[in-house]
């Protein structure tokens, strides 16, 4: 699927299989070269920026670090980030399950097109994702005059931030579940229905246990993006301190004010969140592989 790169998959270690046979291994110097180049690249482009976040955050000491996190504007940014994720996550979760149920368990015309359209938000620039809500709800937008009349603010306010976040995280759960549920087929569900289970019972007791790891996988990736989105949210936020700032936007404001220690302190919380996401993600991959192995036995 377009935009897809991370799907639930455990990369088991079979390296010894290749290294033990002369037909599938390289000369030691070639191996050394590939390992050296790729790991140096990894260290410079991925590891070093991550380390830099934490070192810069703690540069002025623990007290400065702590104060940057507990000052009111930072706390309100943390709160808004949590609220945004708490709304975007469930709505996209329900959508993802509904879309996967329709696409994976039934045949209908235009299925391929629908699957492609679901992926669309991944190929749209975050800036464009923010812009579309300004065009609809902004002062000069379609509903702008009506909203102004009724004193409802969407753009440059919290609802706009939530909408933009829902848009950019839209495909995550659906994209994880569709291939998974397609691969599992529908025999188990059909058996349950034939035996007298109703739709919800079938879903809760048959489908859900089969897809739980894929579901969790989609949810954590969706959450990471929801909490970290910058471009789309930046366009619709209005950047009002203490009101419409999410954590990434708060980082930007602090950074542009040359308050680097505080900017990196808030950034380090987001980096920690990213690390936790990767840990849970790896754990889910491992659990899913175990469950798969148990079935295959």
């Amino acid at each position, binding site marked *: 699927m377009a935009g897809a790169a991370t799907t639930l998959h455990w990369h088991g270690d079979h390296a*010894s299989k290749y290294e033990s046979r002369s037909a*599938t291994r390289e000369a030691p110097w070639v191996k050394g070269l*590939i*390992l050296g180049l790729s790991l140096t690249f990894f260290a410079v482009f991925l590891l070093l920026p*991550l380390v830099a976040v934490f070192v810069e955050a703690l540069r002025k000491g623990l007290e400065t670090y702590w104060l940057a996190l507990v000052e009111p504007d930072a706390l309100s940014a943390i709160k808004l980030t949590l609220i945004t994720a708490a709304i975007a996550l469930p709505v996209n979760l329900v959508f993802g399950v509904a879309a996967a149920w329709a696409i994976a368990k039934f045949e209908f015309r235009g299925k391929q097109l629908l699957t492609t359209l679901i992926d669309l938000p991944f190929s749209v620039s975050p800036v464009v994702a923010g812009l579309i809500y300004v065009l609809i709800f902004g002062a000069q937008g379609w509903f702008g005059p009506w909203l102004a009349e009724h004193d409802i603010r969407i753009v440059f306010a919290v609802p706009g931030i939530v909408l933009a976040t829902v848009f950019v995280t839209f495909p995550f759960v659906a994209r994880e579940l569709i291939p998974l549920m397609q691969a599992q087929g529908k025999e188990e569900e059909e058996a349950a229905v034939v035996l007298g289970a109703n739709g919800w019972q079938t879903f809760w007791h048959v489908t859900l246990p089969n897809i739980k790891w894929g579901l969790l996988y989609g949810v954590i990736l969706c959450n990471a993006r929801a909490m970290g989105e910058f471009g789309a949210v930046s366009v619709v936020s209005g950047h009002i301190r203490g009101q419409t700032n999410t954590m990434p936007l708060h980082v930007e404001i602090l950074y542009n004010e040359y308050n680097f220690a505080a900017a990196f302190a808030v950034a380090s919380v987001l980096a920690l969140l990213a690390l936790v996401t990767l840990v849970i993600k790896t754990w889910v991959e491992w659990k899913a592989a175990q469950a798969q192995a148990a079935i295959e036995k």
Partner: protein
Amino acid sequence: MAAQQHKVLPGFHLALGYTLVYLSLVVLIPLAAVFIKSSALSLEEFWAVVSAPRVVATYQVSFGLSLLAAAINAVFGLMLAWALVRYRFPGKKLVDALVDLPFALPTAVAGIALTALYAGNGWLGQYLEPLGIKVAFGPLGILVALVFIGLPFVVRTVQPILEDLDTELEEAAASLGAQRWQTFRLVILPILLPALLTGFALAFARAVGEYGSVIFIAGNLPFVSEITPLMIITKLEQYDYVGATAIAVVMLLISFALLLLINLLQAWTAKRTGRNR
């Protein structure tokens, strides 16, 4: 006939109906707004906005550097995927997990971290600037950010294909007298090629639209290091909504073209490897 088959499972109409309504409300109608809004411009006016010299310069920066970044990622991403599948080395599981860091790390965090590394007084910048290599606040900085966000796309599309590759192919090639390099070039690479191109296209598509990680390190100088998404923001800040929309139309059309290309590449990957994804 698919439409007439008896459906045992319930919930089809509810699930599909909900999917279509939600998709339309959140994605399709808002995206249509861009095209409808841009129709306020005549074709000449539209062309004047999207072909203004400063805007054209942003296409060159965005597309040129995105292509270069995707190419760098194709080379190093392939090597990294190869190392992760074929070699044993300490810390491998950690490296494998951290490859996805750019998916999980907010782009703004990546942006300020890279700027801190490559600025003139930064960890790497202090050694590079005396050599005359100015990375931060210029095109090279944009390239570094785009390489960062694009890397997992190549690794994660190539890695599963490499894992599924039958070793018998290589053994057959070796027993027929092929050198290791010949085996790679003539046997392995043709199988990997569709996936490698898919990863390249995914990294490119992501890089063209990228904003957060780039703006901190770019310096954002007109005609030198302005990216196209920034141009949309600049127009918006000047309350030039129609201008912003016109550029957004260009970006959306390019995104759709890339999406189509990526779907074709993935179909090719599936055909060549027998994988159904």
